[in-house]
């Protein structure tokens, strides 16, 4: 009787609505993701955030003496913390503590005690040595060991380093030694002789990014 057989549409209404809703939800959701981008602010490399550079003067980091240049006589086998102090674009002195990872550890040991793998060329007379004071594990500031004199211990998870031997790891979780900073003596003052010899925290496992940063610094200074 029926002449016309009812043709099923190619797509049911339910399916159409589901697909339409799914698409809008997906597009809407993804577009909202872009808002996440704003959570991550742009980084500007200002003078106070640059890593220690050739020519920077080492100054005391301790609160009571902050900013005073460090003299050889201030140093001993007890750790002394230092900031690098350079110049900003107007030539004014700037302590580079905008990046707290710039904190340095200075030691002075009797001649002959500092041995390889320390780079002796980068020390002052094989007696004064400078390292990044930031633990390669989770970035805590490393102190003198309270157990063995002449060693360093991280207060966070007890990482241990040997400052007489290139700050190699002698215990605990840190994956890499502390980075050594080349220094030289200039009259009464201690002066930075170049970039860290190895990538410091937080670049210790990302050499490429450390090279990028160095390049960025050189471009900014040029």
């Amino acid at each position, binding site marked *: 009787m029926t002449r016309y057989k009812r043709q099923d549409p190619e797509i049911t209404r339910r399916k159409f609505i589901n697909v339409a809703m799914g698409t809008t939800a997906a597009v809407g959701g993804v577009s909202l993701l872009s808002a996440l981008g704003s959570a991550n602010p742009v980084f500007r490399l200002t003078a106070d955030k640059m890593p220690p550079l050739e020519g920077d003067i080492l100054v005391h*980091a301790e609160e009571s003496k902050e900013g005073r240049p460090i003299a050889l006589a201030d140093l001993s086998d007890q750790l002394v913390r230092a900031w690098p102090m350079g110049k900003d674009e107007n030539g004014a002195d700037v302590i580079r*503590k905008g990046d707290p990872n710039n904190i340095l550890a200075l030691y002075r040991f009797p001649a002959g005690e500092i041995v390889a793998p320390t780079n002796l060329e980068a020390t002052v007379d094989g007696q004064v040595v400078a390292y990044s004071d930031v633990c390669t*594990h989770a970035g*805590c500031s490393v102190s003198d060991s309270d157990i063995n004199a002449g060693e360093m211990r991280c*207060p966070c998870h007890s990482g241990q380093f040997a400052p007489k031997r290139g700050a190699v790891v002698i215990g*605990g*979780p840190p994956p890499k030694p502390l980075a050594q900073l080349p220094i030289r003596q200039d009259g009464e003052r201690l002066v930075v002789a170049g970039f860290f010899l190895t990538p410091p925290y937080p670049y210790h496992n990302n050499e490429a990014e450390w090279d990028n940063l160095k390049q960025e610094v050189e471009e900014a200074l040029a």
Partner: protein
Amino acid sequence: MNQWLDDRLHISRLNDKFLRKAFPVHHSFFLGEITLFSLIILILTGILLALSYEPSNSMVVNSFDPGTADAPNLVPAAYHSALKINAAPFGDMLRRIHHWTANIMVAAAVIHMMRVYFTGAFKKPREINWWIGMLLLIFSALTAVTGYVLPYDNYAYNTLKVIYSIAASIPWVGEWVAQAAFAGKFPGDGVIPRVYGYHIMLLPGILLALTGAHMLLMIKQKHTQPQYAKRVAYKKIVGVPLMTQQTPIMLMLTLLFAGIIVLFSAFIPVHPVEYFGPPSTTPIDNIKPDWYLLWVFGVLAIIPGIEFDFLGGNINSEFIGAILLPTLAIGAMFAVPMLDRSRENLYYAENPTNHPVRLGIGVAFMMLLAVWSVAGYKPELISSGILSTENANTVLWIATFLIPALSYFFVQAVVRGIRSLREADERDRTTHAAHADD
């Protein structure tokens, strides 16, 4: 007035549905309620704190010790406002109450969870509420950690640094994630406003939503019934209704509990910001997280310094210790309801000794976390001479495996003992009954 409201809002239906919910009477059923009261106290004291707290890490002159005109004593505004809160009447108390309640909330939640686990209350049909409970536990810990950071003293600063570097240790995306989460390279100019937003808006919002879902499911599915209910009225819900019998019990409990917290706060200080001072490069010796995160800290202390590249991502011991292992532990807890294959709905709370394997595994898991928490004290163990630098890791790793295993077998032995006692009792009773019949 009830009539007036009822005419418009039909609240009597609400009454029938929710307010008459029967609450079983057993002390272990109050643990969840204590968690709930803690949340309420935290929100109230948190709002009061937020009225005086200044969420900013810009430097301001310290009004308590301004320094001189050419060398002003600058401290972060957040730290300064914490000093001011401490100096205000009752201000220090307010901070202490907030902090103590946070600790107690996590503790109550953990013990509540132990009750649910050991009595089998997570079984069908209550799996969903177990998962919501897990989320509540995780988000409570996150809320507490972000709260910790807010006073922005040296302690908070060092904690934040460790949290940042843990986030940054995720392979491939870590650096981006850490910067997006904490407003740029550490310590970003906007880090305190960011953490403040998490602590007082995002995380409490999530906690409230999850708590609401937890309560609704509990009302819909009803508590598991304590064993005595089986004897009183089999397969009937036994308990006292929320209105009006349970409410006075709850009120009394709240007041008692609030009193205890105030006592704690009055006598035991927490997080003395003046003592730690503003953020500085001087590290804090033997810095520790709160007790419920100590186990993660312990894992970090004993894990060897490994590091390798995998498909271009860097996998290091920090990621393994602070993210991978905890994820596995938490994943195991999430999986608990799926290990139960029964299809029946659970009606009565089970006696833990009838399920010795479950009991043993639970105890072993807790012992594992306890061993790791002790490992968090590794530096103290070494400096007090109990362990040495050389053997500390070995000893602690052996303990990691040995102590949970031993406690598992210990539990089995105890359960067997209890059972044989129970059977002996049973025999006694039957013989006595037989004698009485004569």
